[in-house]
């Protein structure tokens, strides 16, 4: 448990070079920013190498961490004193424990594969070097986020990844839609970020420090239940923004405007999982307040189902994946809400693999069909793009939860814990969400790869170059094998994370095998249904879909949440902005300033009349003064 960890005393080898793990991508970003244009193609090589080197270092560091006894698996590294005001001190400190170790491996591992892929995807782009600079910068900030030993370093990374997300979503900013999407992402997450900042301020007020050891060690004695609830909910607000949960989920589908490697890295594998990391890291605070955990659970559950329905109604292949990500993140928060932190982290790791895989696969499809994204215009691509097809299929199966792929173990564990903690409502709804997940993923696969091509571009599709399909293959291999990390709920990952996350909850319910059987049956049923409608050819899926109108359109528009926000929030905000600009600023403030200026002018214009030019007037005033002074002196005496 937290607090029972004792920092390791020896920090030799890779553990001493902890700071180098984020420093390498930062250096890569700096070099590519300044010299990217001159480097040309090697800029991409450099960008990929830094992240790969980071991954190697991270692997070595984790190996060294594992060599330590379980109670000592904590490495703190103090870089420099950041803030020192009165009694408030914040250091630039790094912390390696089981939780951050898991995260850095995911970030650098999946990240390096995506960087390699991007060498092919972004080839020929005029701002090739800058792309890799931004990507490296993102990796740097993400690593700072997860390696931070206090909330301020975490927040630094938090804001930094938001910035890089904005830069990368709007990378092709010449298109106005992309710039709009980037703005939307930044502003929406900003709402969460600001609430989170309030939470941090509360922590400072209560604890006088932002350090994890201090906060989590003394939380029980310092905080009341209500204060803990407030802080936890504020932090969760930040997570809602960053991880695109309801009600701040609206930015993620639009963020698909960015290049596909960006979607894969940021909006599938890493940045959006920062919220899950935050809550798991702060679980002490959440557990002190029972309410907060319930809120997390409910939000996750509702989001999971809501987003799954929306994914079912999308025709753009990337938007399906976007809503899918939102839904899967909802699953992760469900797990957290049930105190199943290991299950959540396991889900996070597995999801990183298969979601990044599917995003990169979608990118490969787009590359092969010359930027076709509408699935209705695709079809038959399994023949022309076989490698993409196979890897994508693996990812889809992993998401659907087909054993022995990794996704099966993760989802299965989650549902098992729901059942074993007697949350039957959650269990049933979780099954519904799982069914929908399999359904929309099957629809995606069958529409894209099966039957006959439905457009000229689909007919002329070709496979992608090796620099793109090799990462796909590696990710696919990962999606298959990563499951061994935690085959049972108390598997290896659970043991590894126990020092941070605590024991796995749940006592008894249905037997694990029964639960697995139910889950798999549902997944298979969903896939069969999808095949029958979209893949078999026996059903005219266009007519079938139209038969359900207006449901498909509603789903495609995300239950009109965006429209609602536009009416309720954005238009009024625009009105207020217009008022501020044209009335308050132009009329009142400018009016006040101009009135003062005008008043001074009028005063001066009146005052200048004293300067008559007549000597005698001046003499008269002299005499007035003289008489006045005499009178004053006289009266004084």
């Amino acid at each position, binding site marked *: 448990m937290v607090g029972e960890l004792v920092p390791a005393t020896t920090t030799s080898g890779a553990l001493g070079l902890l700071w180098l793990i984020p420093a390498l991508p930062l250096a890569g970003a700096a070099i590519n920013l300044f010299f990217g244009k001159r480097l040309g193609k090697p800029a991409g090589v450099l960008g990929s190498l830094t992240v790969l080197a980071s991954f190697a270092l991270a692997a070595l560091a984790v190996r060294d961490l594992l060599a330590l006894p379980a109670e000592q698996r904590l490495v703190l590294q103090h870089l420099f004193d950041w803030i020192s005001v009165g009694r408030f001190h914040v250091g630039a400190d790094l912390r390696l424990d089981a939780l951050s170790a898991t995260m850095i491996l995911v970030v650098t591992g999946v990240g390096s594969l995506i960087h390699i892929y991007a060498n092919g995807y972004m080839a020929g782009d005029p701002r090739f070097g800058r792309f890799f600079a931004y990507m490296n910068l993102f990796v740097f900030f993400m690593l700072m986020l997860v390696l931070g030993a206090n909330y301020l370093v975490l927040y630094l990374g938090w804001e930094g990844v938001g910035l890089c997300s904005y830069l990368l979503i709007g990378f092709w900013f010449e298109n106005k839609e992309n710039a709009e999407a980037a703005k939307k992402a930044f502003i929406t997450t900003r709402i969460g970020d600001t609430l989170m900042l309030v939470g941090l301020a509360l922590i400072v007020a209560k604890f006088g420090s932002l350090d994890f050891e201090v906060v989590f060690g003394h939380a029980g004695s310092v905080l009341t239940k209500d204060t803990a609830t407030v802080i936890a909910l504020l932090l969760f607000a930040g997570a809602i923004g960053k991880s695109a949960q309801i009600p701040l989920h609206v930015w993620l589908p639009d963020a698909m405007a960015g290049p596909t490697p960006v979607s894969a890295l940021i909006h599938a594998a890493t940045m959006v999982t920062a919220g899950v990391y935050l809550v798991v890291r702060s679980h002490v605070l959440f557990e002190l307040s029972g309410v907060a955990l319930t809120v997390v659970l409910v939000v996750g559950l509702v989001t999971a189902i809501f987003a799954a329905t929306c994914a079912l109604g999308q025709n753009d292949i990337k938007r399906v994946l976007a809503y899918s990500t939102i839904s899967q993140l909802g699953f992760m928060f469900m797990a957290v809400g049930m105190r199943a932190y290991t299950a959540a982290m396991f889900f996070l790791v597995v999801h990183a693999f298969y979601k990044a895989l599917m995003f990169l696969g979608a990118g490969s499809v787009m590359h092969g069909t010359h930027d076709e994204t509408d699935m209705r215009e695709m079809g038959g691509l399994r023949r022309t793009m076989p490698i993409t097809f196979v890897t994508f299929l693996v990812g889809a199966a992993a998401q659907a939860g087909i054993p022995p792929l990794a996704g099966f173990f993760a989802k299965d564990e989650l549902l098992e814990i729901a059942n074993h903690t007697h949350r039957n409502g959650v269990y049933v709804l979780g099954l519904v969400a799982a069914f929908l997940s399999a359904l929309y993923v099957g629809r995606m696969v069958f529409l894209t790869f099966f039957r006959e091509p439905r457009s000229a571009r689909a007919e002329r599709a070709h496979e992608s170059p090796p620099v793109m399909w090799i990462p796909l293959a590696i990710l696919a291999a990962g999606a298959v094998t990563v499951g061994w990390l935690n085959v049972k709920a108390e598997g290896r990952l659970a043991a590894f994370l126990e020092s941070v996350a605590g024991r796995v909850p749940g006592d008894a319910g249905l037997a694990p095998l029964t639960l697995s059987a139910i889950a798999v049956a549902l997944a298979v049923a969903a896939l069969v249904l999808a095949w029958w409608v979209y893949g078999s050819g026996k059903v005219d899926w266009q007519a079938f879909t139209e038969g359900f109108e207006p449901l498909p359109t509603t789903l495609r528009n995300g239950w009109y949440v965006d429209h609602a926000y536009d009416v309720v929030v954005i238009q009024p905000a625009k009105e207020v902005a217009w008022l501020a600009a044209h009335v308050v600023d132009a009329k009142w403030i400018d009016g006040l300033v101009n009135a003062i200026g005008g008043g001074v002018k009028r005063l001066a214009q009146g005052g200048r009349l004293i*300067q*008559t*030019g*007549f*000597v*005698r007037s001046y*003499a*008269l005033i002299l*005499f007035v003064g003289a008489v006045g002074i005499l009178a004053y002196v006289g009266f004084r005496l």
Partner: protein
Amino acid sequence: MRTPIAYYLLLSGILFALGTIGVLTRKNALLIFMSVELQLNAVNLTLVAFARLHNDLTGQVLAFFSMVVAAAEVVVGLGIIVAIYRRRRTVDVDDARELRW
């Protein structure tokens, strides 16, 4: 000397006030100058009266100096007025009003 000294002082005050009124009221530069001389004389009278009051000849000496300086001042002042007249063909002080708003 039976007249109270204060009478002389009041008289010089009256003359001084009249001189000031002359300075403020007349437009001819020469007449203004003459009013100034009137003022100076009033002050001289005050000095001499105080000399008599305090049994000190310093007042008379001061009045003497005042007269000398007044003479020099009249010389220079009239020279200026003549110079201005040569340039502007006027001695009306109201005509010298370029330095106005």
